[in-house]
């Protein structure tokens, strides 16, 4: 059996444009900002954009895992702050090679707490992570006493460091991305995440350990929040009592902008990286062109809107063009 497909040269160009619409939008944006500021289209500036997108991007990669199984994690900001507080208050004197893995473990433990409530007690993910958002920040605030948390000079030096000409933040971003990409596309675990997201009941019947998968993705989100928090704090050098506060919004925005569905089963980390970089590009372009700060949210929201609009209308047009043709039964 095969689908009868009517093809035409004209239609395939349309399809090409549609399929690559987000990239084209990105190019148009680059051209616009490039025309308005001659310093925008430079390698250094692109490096800057990626550095600034790194921490949101990394956390959003973790969020992608959670959204892929149809869950949500609102507590990542609190997780970031706990990591910052512990690193700055208790592990200041330890070498990075020890303190970083330790706080990453704390991020993992935080994710595991979420996961435990969600998988064992079957509390809804939204409410669980809403609660741990408060509890986590409360605990960390107890440690920090609301004070600014500072870090050892090594941490700050790491924030500015480059290895083989590539800044540390980009290294972190790239490593997390590659690990996540390979996990999702090249491992049984990754493919099972998609299966659980598409239909948890069917996944259970097929013999997939659904609880283990769900548990793991919240842990992954916790680890990513910790790593993203580390990158962020190594850049901004101190963590105030609002470090990571309300970070869930830009993180989920980047993930969803990258094409990951909130209802599970659809999306991927490549899109997430694209989403995070796109938002940062716009913010960067606005500063480069010395725009009125009041206009920032207006312009950013309009551009996100256009991106999503193109994406959704593209999908419906693609659907129409590739509509199921009559199936002919082969005899």
């Amino acid at each position, binding site marked *: 059996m095969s689908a009868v497909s009517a093809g035409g040269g004209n239609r395939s160009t349309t399809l090409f444009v549609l399929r690559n619409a987000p990239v084209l939008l990105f190019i148009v944006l680059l051209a616009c900002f490039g025309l308005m500021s001659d310093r925008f289209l430079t390698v250094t500036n692109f490096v800057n954009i990626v550095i600034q997108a790194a921490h949101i991007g990394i956390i959003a990669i973790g969020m992608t895992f959670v959204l892929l199984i149809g869950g949500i994690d609102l507590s990542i900001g609190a997780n970031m702050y706990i990591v910052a507080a512990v690193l700055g208050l208790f592990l200041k004197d330890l070498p990075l090679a020890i303190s970083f893995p330790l706080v990453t473990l704390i991020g993992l433990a935080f994710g595991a707490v979420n996961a435990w409530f969600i998988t064992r007690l079957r509390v809804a993910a939204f409410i669980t992570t809403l*609660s741990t958002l408060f509890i986590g920040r409360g605990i960390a605030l107890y440690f920090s006493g609301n004070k600014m948390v500072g870090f050892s000079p090594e941490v700050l030096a790491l924030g500015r460091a480059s290895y083989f000409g590539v800044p540390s933040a980009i290294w972190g971003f790239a490593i997390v991305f590659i690990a996540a990409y390979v996990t999702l596309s090249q491992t049984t675990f990754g493919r099972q995440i998609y299966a659980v997201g598409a239909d948890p009941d069917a996944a259970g019947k097929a013999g997939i350990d659904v609880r283990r998968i769900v548990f793991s993705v919240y842990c992954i989100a916790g680890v990513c929040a910790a790593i993203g928090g580390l990158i962020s704090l190594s850049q901004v050098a101190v963590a105030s009592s609002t470090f990571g506060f309300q970070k869930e919004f830009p993180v989920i925005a980047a993930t*969803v902008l990258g094409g990951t569905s909130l209802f599970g089963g659809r999306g991927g980390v490549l899109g997430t990286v694209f989403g995070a970089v796109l938002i940062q590009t716009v913010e960067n372009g606005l500063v480069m062109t010395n725009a009125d700060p009041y206009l920032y949210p207006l312009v950013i929201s309009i551009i996100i809107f256009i991106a*999503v609009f193109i994406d959704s209308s593209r999908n419906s047009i693609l659907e129409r063009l590739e509509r199921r043709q009559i199936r002919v039964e082969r005899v």
Partner: protein
Amino acid sequence: MSSTQSITPGSAAEATRPQRSFAVRLLMSEYLVLVLTAIYFLVMWALVPSIATADTLLDILAAMMPLLVVAIGQTFVLIVAGIDLAAPSILAAASVAGASMMTGEGGFALFTGVPIGVGILAFVGVGLLIGLLNGVCVTRLGMPPFIVTLTTMMFFSGFALFYTSALTDDGSSFGDLPSAFVAIGQGTWHGVPYSLALAGAVMLVAHLTLSRTVFGSWLYAIGRNPRAAAISGVPVRRAVLWAFVISGLCGGIASIIYTGRLETGTPVLGQRILLDIVGSAVIGGVSLFGGKGRVTWTLYGVLFLSVVDKGLQLLGLDLASVFAIKGLVILSAAVLDAVRHRLTLRG
């Protein structure tokens, strides 16, 4: 959290089911959130006796009204499996637009002689417009509600700031509002706050709409299975559009109450309460996945959060304890609900 669903076993099961203790029956009822509110209240009463004074109780009631109104709007959208993240920006944009009409410091509508009327129209109009915009994007352009309302939230919050900075001397807010308008948020009639009456009316209309009308039944059907609803002749797009418009309208009305209470039209109004809005509906039992929810459930959720907040305010603890206790209380409620759900499933 979920509603009371009953699996209907055979009649034999009914007969063999052991008599349940009062505690278990209470745990399984839809009033669980109310019970938890009461328990929390009693604990607080022991710690801070002033929580049980008439004034404080009236404060709690009056204070929860605007949140209730905006959460009711959210309930409509949640029932059709949508979400309206734009609610805070509706509060803010309506607040500055309405206040800019009425302010004694050069309001646009002063010349009309009835600035209050124009102002109220502006509140409601801004709410309706943003709701309509969200609805059109979701139903006509086929965009996901989450991202549509996220962008409208950013846009209109930004716009409210921009508008205020352009039109006020200090760039922060519109004050000097007419006293008759302020009364909507603060005034009382024989001890009953006007805001209570207004929110009560909204609640009644919303409750009747959802539970008694064709439109309400359509909304539930869309939330439960949009394809089946469409095939059964439900005007899915139109109904979803209306759900967003209603959410916008509720945002506008809530903004009137907030603005009246604060005597100020401010662009930062409600910017931090998004999780309170969605959270109270969800704690009450409204499903984020559509098809399940009631106005009364949302009321319980709002009451719960309001009482929790007021108790913490009265204690006057440091921020760390406030966060930790609030989180623990919500989590305990959620765990209890999960336990209840399992008991229900067990039959």
